[in-house]
């Protein structure tokens, strides 16, 4: 009832083509951002910030990157973890090898390095498609895993191959408390999300979608597949690389290649598919689902056990957690194969018509 566009008339193209064309959406987004910036730091405690919200923000950013490639350009990738690793290690090297390099610049440069690597390892996409491509991107995953373990230069000759960085200093603001870290990640995420939203509705975004829907047909109408595909790989890897650098610099502080293993790649792909391919909001839904659910299950199952007076062993809880997690993935796919974002938009569609069914 409140979500109705009746009576809202667009009189200029400009207003018709705004990012959020419906005022209700605009206000809702603004409200969410405001709550995230002001409300959340005031309300939640440290555990929630450090263990849930910061990982959620960073992985949302990574999922956003993967979504650009998988959801908008239709190129399935299983090498996202590697892009994160490239971003993190490149940022680390920029930071320690260039004197006076600001941390934020190092993070962005890390993203650029990841973009370059993405272009190189995205090149097979010009010839290889679908699942074959997905597996081909695994080559990048395993190669970078190996490179960061074996090539000592990347880790500044650390004896164990793991590296660490000090707290980030941004124009005199030392980012050390969980709230600082949260706000820093949130700021980056908001900026990058708006960029992505604009990117995908512009010319390049339409090219990506054309390639996704049918690349031969897109080529016929004059879209250069090389440019479209490689730009998608570059942009996507940039996002994922920045997320990787944040993961290392802000979340972990010290890391080894295993932090960006193949499991991470799978996890990111999960987020995109569960959340909704080709929907910016899907990246957030997906990240929330994947980050929160296992922890949630783990705690709830433990509590449930306690409720019935059973001493449930940790092992059993986590076995059940994995089982339920798998079952829920399947369940969500059955309810809505196009992801949570679609569930959301179907709901919105109903809201617009409410109280009428059709």
């Amino acid at each position: 009832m409140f979500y109705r566009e009746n009576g809202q008339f667009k009189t200029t193209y400009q207003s018709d083509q705004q990012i959020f064309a419906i005022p209700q959406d605009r206000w809702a987004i603004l409200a969410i951002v405001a709550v995230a910036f002001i409300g959340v730091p005031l309300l939640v405690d440290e555990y929630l910030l450090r263990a849930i919200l910061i990982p959620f923000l960073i992985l949302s950013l990574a999922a956003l990157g993967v979504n650009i490639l998988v959801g908008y350009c239709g190129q399935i990738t299983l090498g996202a973890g590697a892009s994160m690793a490239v971003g993190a290690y490149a940022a680390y090297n920029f930071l320690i090898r260039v004197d006076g390099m600001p941390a934020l610049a190092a993070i962005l440069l890390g993203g650029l390095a990841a973009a370059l690597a993405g272009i190189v390892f995205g090149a097979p996409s010009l010839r290889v498609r679908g699942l074959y491509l997905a597996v081909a991107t695994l080559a990048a995953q395993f190669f970078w895993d190996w490179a960061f373990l074996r090539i000592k230069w990347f880790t500044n000759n650390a004896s164990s191959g793991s590296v660490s960085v000090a707290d980030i200093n941004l124009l005199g603001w030392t980012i050390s408390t969980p709230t600082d870290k949260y706000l820093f990640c949130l700021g980056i995420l908001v900026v990058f999300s708006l960029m992505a939203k604009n990117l995908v509705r512009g010319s390049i975004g339409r090219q990506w979608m054309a390639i996704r829907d049918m690349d031969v047909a897109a080529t016929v109408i004059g879209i250069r597949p090389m440019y479209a595909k490689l730009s998608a790989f570059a942009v996507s890897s940039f996002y994922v690389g920045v997320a990787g650098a944040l993961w290392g610099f802000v979340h972990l502080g010290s890391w080894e290649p295993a932090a960006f293993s193949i499991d991470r790649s799978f996890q990111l792909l999960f987020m995109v598919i569960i959340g909704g391919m080709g929907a910016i909001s899907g990246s957030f839904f997906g990240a929330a689902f994947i980050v929160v659910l296992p922890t949630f299950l783990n705690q709830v199952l433990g509590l449930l056990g306690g409720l019935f007076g059973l001493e449930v062993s940790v092992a059993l809880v986590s076995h059940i957690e994995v089982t339920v997690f798998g079952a829920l993935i399947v369940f969500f796919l059955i309810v809505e194969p196009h992801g949570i974002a679609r569930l959301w938009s179907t709901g919105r569609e109903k809201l617009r018509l409410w109280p009428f069914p059709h």
Partner: protein
Amino acid sequence: MTTANILLNVNSIEVIYNHVILVLKGVSLSVPDGSIVALLGGNGAGKTTTLRAVSNLLQGERGEVTKGSIECRGERIEALTPADLVKRGVVQVMEGRHCFGHLTIEENLMTGSYTRRDGRAAVAQTLEKVYNYFPRLKERRTSQAAYTSGGEQQMCAIGRALMANPTMVLLDEPSMGLAPQIVDEVFGIVKDLNQREKVTFLLAEQNTNMALRYADFGYILENGRVVMEGAAAELANNEDVKEFYLGISSGERKSFRESKHYRRRKRWLA
């Protein structure tokens, strides 16, 4: 039309996709045994949805029949699986052909006999019959279906359906993307099958002209409703049909400049 020889009876069905999009708003039709019935209408009128509702292929598209009933020889069939329906002799030939691209033509045809339990010899006989109707298929029997022409694929799809030994074929847009000559050939074979093999056809078609020439009876769908029905010859002579579906207006040809600034109102849109 007596009810005794009605093969298929669709009774005011409603179909909703994805829980929100209402596509069919009460469609009723009946198909007598041994006839060719045409479903006509423009894009998005609900022709394909009607056929899918009958053949129970809606599920894969996240659609469902929410109201009304569908009966085949008096038996309710909405709850059956497509496979059960094929066993009862109702086969759909899908729009856009849908041949199995990686199988050869002959393998494609053979898959059509999957539900049959009457022995190899009978199947071989049917295969021979199909090859008789579609001699082109025999020529291309060993090539992969994806590499054959559109017409051949359409023939392959129809032939594949015939391999199930059906009593009724639901034929969706057989003319789509084919040259007029091939369309003629395909329709000719449909008519042949109808007369010689006594196969009943329910035909969804945009090419109204062609469809009315071969069909016995026609329904016109618009916006998910049946707006007109009648014997094929009757429909072909109807003024409205002529104007809106056949592109023939009364009187002599006018130049574009003299044409009316507004078209005739579709009378049924109240």
